[in-house]
């Protein structure tokens, strides 16, 4: 029973983490076909905002986490207006290279401002005990945050006017434009939303991980893999993909070492792609 709880808790943590780190990327890629290479740095922005607000300005942790997405959205919005909107029509590799450039600049600026190893914050809420095993109660926050994020997005894209227009623009940009959809504004909102979600993800994870400017590098590889495996349905696909990859990597981490966990995640991803090159949701009928 205790062993079961141990495995369950760590699996939930792994899966929720993957969802938190990849949703923002999935939204931007799914709706704009833009690969945001600076995604990892937006995770970092969220995490650093949270730790700084808690340590310097003594915000309560939950309030600091609520502020983080706005910081991410502000940076992302400026980036979209200055650079992304100008090259959106061009080669896909161009947007990839531009965002890569931004990623490097953000990384170096973070190092300049915060140093390479800024102080972290404690995990709030203490521990919970089940039998002889105790685990951080904050795990539940991760789980709830991941679920709220996905269900919130589902509602946003099915129930709002923006959601409808964004999906229309994604499916057929030329037609959407011809029907009078302000595609440029929709893309701006989508990109900003994606950056905000990334920062929120980083913020929620901040108490559980070591927060530093290189945080982005540490997580972005897994985030990319999750999104590629997810395929076109960027909400439900991401959920399934996080389950598959998170489950496998967690199992291996438990059984062997973290090193094997990371390697296993990658190996699994490559094997899935061999058979499902367009991702697990490629043949699904619903597009969300």
């Amino acid at each position, binding site marked *: 029973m205790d062993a079961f709880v141990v495995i369950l808790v760590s699996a939930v943590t792994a899966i929720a983490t993957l969802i938190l780190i990849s949703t923002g990327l999935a939204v931007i890629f799914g709706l704009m*076909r833009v*690969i945001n*290479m600076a995604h990892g740095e937006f995770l970092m922005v969220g995490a650093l905002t949270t730790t700084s607000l808690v340590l310097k300005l003594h915000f309560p942790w939950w309030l600091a986490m609520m502020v983080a997405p706005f910081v991410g959205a502000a940076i992302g919005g400026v980036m979209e207006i200055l*650079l992304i909107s*100008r*090259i959106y029509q061009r080669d*896909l*590799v*161009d947007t*990839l*290279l*531009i965002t*890569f*450039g*931004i*990623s*490097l*600049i953000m*990384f*170096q*600026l973070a190092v*300049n401002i915060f140093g390479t190893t800024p102080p972290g914050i404690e995990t709030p809420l203490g521990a919970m005990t089940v039998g002889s095993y105790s685990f951080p109660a904050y795990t539940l926050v991760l789980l709830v945050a991941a679920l709220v994020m996905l269900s919130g997005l589902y509602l946003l894209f099915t129930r709002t006017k923006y959601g409808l227009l964004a999906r229309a623009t994604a499916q057929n940009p030329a037609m959407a434009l011809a029907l009078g959809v302000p595609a440029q504004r929709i893309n701006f909102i989508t990109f900003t939303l994606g950056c905000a979600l990334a920062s929120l993800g980083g913020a929620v994870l901040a108490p559980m991980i070591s927060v530093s400017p290189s945080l982005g*590098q*540490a997580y*972005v*590889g*897994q985030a*990319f*893999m999750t*999104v*590629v495996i997810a395929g076109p349905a960027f909400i439900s696909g991401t959920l399934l993909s996080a389950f598959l990859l998170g489950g496998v990597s967690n199992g291996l981490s438990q059984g062997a070492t*973290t*090193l094997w966990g*990371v*390697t296993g995640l*990658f190996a699994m*991803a*490559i094997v899935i*792609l*061999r*058979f499902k*090159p*367009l991702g697990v949701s490629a*043949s699904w*009928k619903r597009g969300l």
Partner: protein
Amino acid sequence: MTTSMPHDEPLTGTFSSSLAIRSMRVKGLILFPVLIALLVFAAQFASSTMALKLTLWISFAICALSLDFVWGKAGIFSFGQNAVFGLGGYAYAVVALNLFPTSQETISALLGAGLVGAVSSTLLGYFLFYSRLSDVSLSIVTLAVTLIIYTVLASTAGPEYHIGDALLGGFNGIPSLPGIAFPSIGSFGGEELSMHQLLTFAIVFAGLIYFLLHVLVHSRFGLKIEGLRSNELRMELLGYDVRKLKLTAFTIGGLIAGLGGGLFAAWGTFVNPSVFSLAQAATVVVWVMVGGRGSLLGAFVGVLLVQSAADAADLVVTEQTPLLVGLLLIGVVMLMPDGVVPTLTRWIMPARSRQRDFRIKLPVAKPGFANETPERRLSVTEIAKHFGGVHVLRGISAAFGEHPINAIIGPNGAGKSTFFNILTGRHRPDQGKVVLNGSDVSRMPTFLRCRRGLGIKMQVPCIFSDLTVRENMQLAAMISREAQDICDVLQRVGLSNRANEIAKTLSHGEQQWLEIALLLVQNPSVILLDEPGAGMGEEDKRRTIALIHSLSEQHTLIVVEHDMEFIRALSAPLLMLHQGIVFRSGAFEELVRDDAVIDAYLGRRSHAG
């Protein structure tokens, strides 16, 4: 300064199985050893710091060269070239530490680096290309691989992680490697090279790699990978195994990057996981972007410019490399996406990019070979195909070849395109057989069917728009066992005076003819035409119909079309598909008088009962 090639230059020639190189290029290459010798001579006067720096840059340039080849020539955008470079470095370290104490040489380690580079690229490439990943997924996966290697190598700090005598050492990497040392033969070799000797070695080594790559790029293989970059689908429709070609190009890139990594490790006498960092992955791309992708020389120019700029900036603000690389990357993409070398080339020699001479002499089949092809038949039996729950085709049987022209018609949603795709091999049937000239090709991929005599003409012109008309034709002829004379075919479609022009400068109509010429040069037994009349004016349609009639003398044609006037002019037996079955077949006049056919087209319920 370009010598223009006369248009009527004979294209025929003797078949040569070796790599035949353009004669003009060969002349240029005589100068090449002289240039290398001059560089080696000049290198002796470099200061020690300079020599050290230049050797490092040369190892970088070899890495850039590999990406330039893979991306600029073959069109595969990989973020993983620096990972292969890094693996080469680690391979050098591991082999050198294990062998050097006894063998006193590290050339084996350098070759080992190249081998590891090639093998790791083959493995990765197999998954990338045989999964048919999209370009985007491919670049993401290569990046993720890089990051994961970084993570894995960084966590190998313990003493348990070792290969032979080499401790992997986690973040700190592997220190105290031996430098480049030749095996001792008499008084030569047997000890590590000095700083200036290493620079000399690096210049010659890089020069050799550059030379071989240059030869490769101008060989038949070079033309094939240019075709790949220009139009992958057409390559497949000509009968090329696209995945294998890509894998080969990627492996060659891996070999080069691995060798560069070996030189890098020998230069620094250490290697650590920082070569796998994101910043490094981006830097390789920046080198190639700045130098100009597709220009082999650009790799060297790019490294020289970017690294000099980085060094200069380092004097002003230290330790800001990622910031600088980031700014450079954004600047180049926004302001000069073509890179320095191509931009300069265009300024200095504006004609050169347009003027291309032909590269290869081709095997030419005996004239009149076409008539000797005995079989020109394609038949299908009981073909069924469903997508999800929708049964698009429900048991179609037909035989083509009795009559030279065959038309397939049907209202929207009848299953025409699915049927066409079953014939081309894009879709595999759930049931039933496709038989081409007596052999079952149901499970065969498109390119193999094309090699066995199937020609496919797409609705929109599918040609190599970045290559000249002649190069287009050569690509088609190279893979065919029954290649026809290129000049004859070009004359037949009226393009013989355009042979040296880049295909994208042709008009829409001419591009259609070029595509037909690509089929003709391969002398296929059966030609599939997908809506040949689509988007054409009356004049073009008449020409196309005339051409179809003339083609039918030597080939069996299958035309999928819904333009009734067009079909009437073909005077061919019709096969009408409706709701996934062969609804009617017969002559045009019979079908237009059939009420059931009209009902199907108008979407009426049958009134005949």
